[in-house]
């Protein structure tokens, strides 16, 4: 923005609103973090107080690390999230390329059919999915979760990516064809690097729901060795007693990897959202 169009009142208002929103959004996270470092009594006495010498305690983290196989849960969540994202991006981009690049009968219909999943939540099909997983022997495997999350992420991925791929220069792809590149090389080497921002956007929008999901791990993979972090943390929430120290500590630790992945994707993500166009 140039100087002439900059109005101090507007800038102050915009920053004020954004800062307020940031505070509101971060407040629950902040409360979880400070309380995870306090004794149980201190949590209930004054939930908003910072931990001090008297109330400081690592009991929550100790419980989490001792009880259950926290690192295994962590690893399961990581495997499921990363593998699902990988397949969503790979297959989503491939389908999007086909829809955007090739003229074939039913192209538009196919695009609409693939986009239908955006409007219909996959959980409606839970019973059928469970039956399928049981008959194919995939219950209590991470594969089951990866398959379901891939299916869940594909519609939006195809929709967003095909829009971006339509904007990649035809000349560039045609130059590749004339130089004898295969369609796969054109896709992987020429087109994919140009839609990176869109890929990052899709990755972030898919990542958080997968990481936080409780529904499918509970139904499809509740066994001890396939528990995800979200499901694993549930052991501390009982019907009669809840170990709040442990729950808060588990939640605090669960935030970390998502934040790391977000930082990796965020620069591309911002470009993807703000540009809306690739050259």
């Amino acid at each position, binding site marked *: 923005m140039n100087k002439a169009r900059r109005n101090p009142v507007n800038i102050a208002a915009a920053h004020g609103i954004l800062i307020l929103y940031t505070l509101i959004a971060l407040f629950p996270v902040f409360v979880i973090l400070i309380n995870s470092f306090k004794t149980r009594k201190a949590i209930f006495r004054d939930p908003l107080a910072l931990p001090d010498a008297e109330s400081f305690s690592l009991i929550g983290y100790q419980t989490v690390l001792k009880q259950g196989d926290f690192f295994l849960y962590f690893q399961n969540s990581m495997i499921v999230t990363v593998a699902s994202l990988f397949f969503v991006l790979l297959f989503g981009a491939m389908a999007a390329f086909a829809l955007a690049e090739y003229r074939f009968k039913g192209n538009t219909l196919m695009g609409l059919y693939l986009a239908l999943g955006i409007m219909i939540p996959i959980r409606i099909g839970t019973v059928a999915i469970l039956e399928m997983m049981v008959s194919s022997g995939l219950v209590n495997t991470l594969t089951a979760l990866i398959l379901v999350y891939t299916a869940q992420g594909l519609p939006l991925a195809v929709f967003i990516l095909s829009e971006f791929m339509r904007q990649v220069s035809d000349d560039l792809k045609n130059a*590749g*064809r*004339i*130089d*004898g*590149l295969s369609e796969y090389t054109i896709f992987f080497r020429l087109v994919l690097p*140009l839609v990176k921002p869109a890929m990052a956007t899709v990755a972030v929008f898919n990542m958080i729901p997968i990481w936080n999901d409780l529904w499918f791990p509970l139904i499809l993979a509740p066994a001890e060795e396939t528990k995800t972090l979200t499901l694993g943390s549930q052991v501390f929430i009982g019907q009669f007693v809840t170990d709040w120290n442990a729950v808060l500590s588990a939640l605090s630790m669960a935030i970390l990897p998502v934040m790391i992945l977000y930082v990796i994707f965020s620069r591309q993500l911002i470009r993807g959202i703000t540009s809306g166009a690739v050259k």
Partner: protein
Amino acid sequence: MTALVLRNICKSFGKVEVLKHIDLTVEDGEFVVFVGPSGCGKSTLLRVIAGLEDATDGTVEISGKPVNDVPPAKRGIAMVFQSYALYPHLTVHDNMALALKQEKQPKAQIEARVAEASRMLELGDLLERRPAELSGGQRQRVAIGRAIVREPQLFLFDEPLSNLDAALRMNTRIEIAALHRALKASIIYVTHDQTEAMTLADKIVVLRDGVVEQVGSPMDLYNNPANQFVAGFLGAPSMNFLAAEAVGGTSGQTLGIRPEHLRITDTGPLSGSVTHVEWLGGDTNVLVEAGEAGRITVRAFGQYDIEVGAPVALDFDAAQSFHFDADGARIRG
């Protein structure tokens, strides 16, 4: 041997017919320019020749062989695109070498050809740069270099100069003409700019709405246009068209006179007043509002002091004028 033969090429996108029954021959070593207004199907025709689009009907022959079922890379062609279309992730050197690597040429051969092309196009200092680090003119030269290294039987250029500024466009035009002389290659060059067409072509193909209007040498087309469209499209400023009645001709016919064939005189068949004057130094363009004949452009060679509003009369040689019927077809005789 003929470089290219097109027989009855038709192309439709859905119900829209973009190319209609195109027949054309390009001789070996010939520089052929496709010219026509935007959207008339020039690029589509070029893509059909390259094999990037399948023709709906008709056959394409390159160097005597039908190539309808041959993929673009095996047709013996190279193409230069309007947007340059350089590979953003490769250096200038690798951009030029890629096609040869794909053909599995020996490494020494690849290096020799890239070196030769970069010498011709003066790209020596840029070989290790990426396209993002080049100016528009440099990118254009790399795109041309990428085509040259393949030593194709047929070069295809799709409006290669339209993204360059005026000065650079003229220089590059001269370079392309020099390149044609040096390589003795067959070239098909697409443009909507009649100056490029006139200056570069051995043979011009004028297209309109997917139909070939006329084929011929630049001077053929200038001196002997087949119809009103060709007459109006070639030559700058473009030909004046007036109702033949205004100068005592047959009603319903159109009279065409080139601006350079009109003379400003004291008495003449046309008269009116000056509405605008453009002094270009070498010549002067005078716009005259000539009553029922309408607005007429006169191109006078040299510099003239003419005031806006001055009454003038215009004269011309009947032998240098053209007659067209109501459908725009040329009436000879």
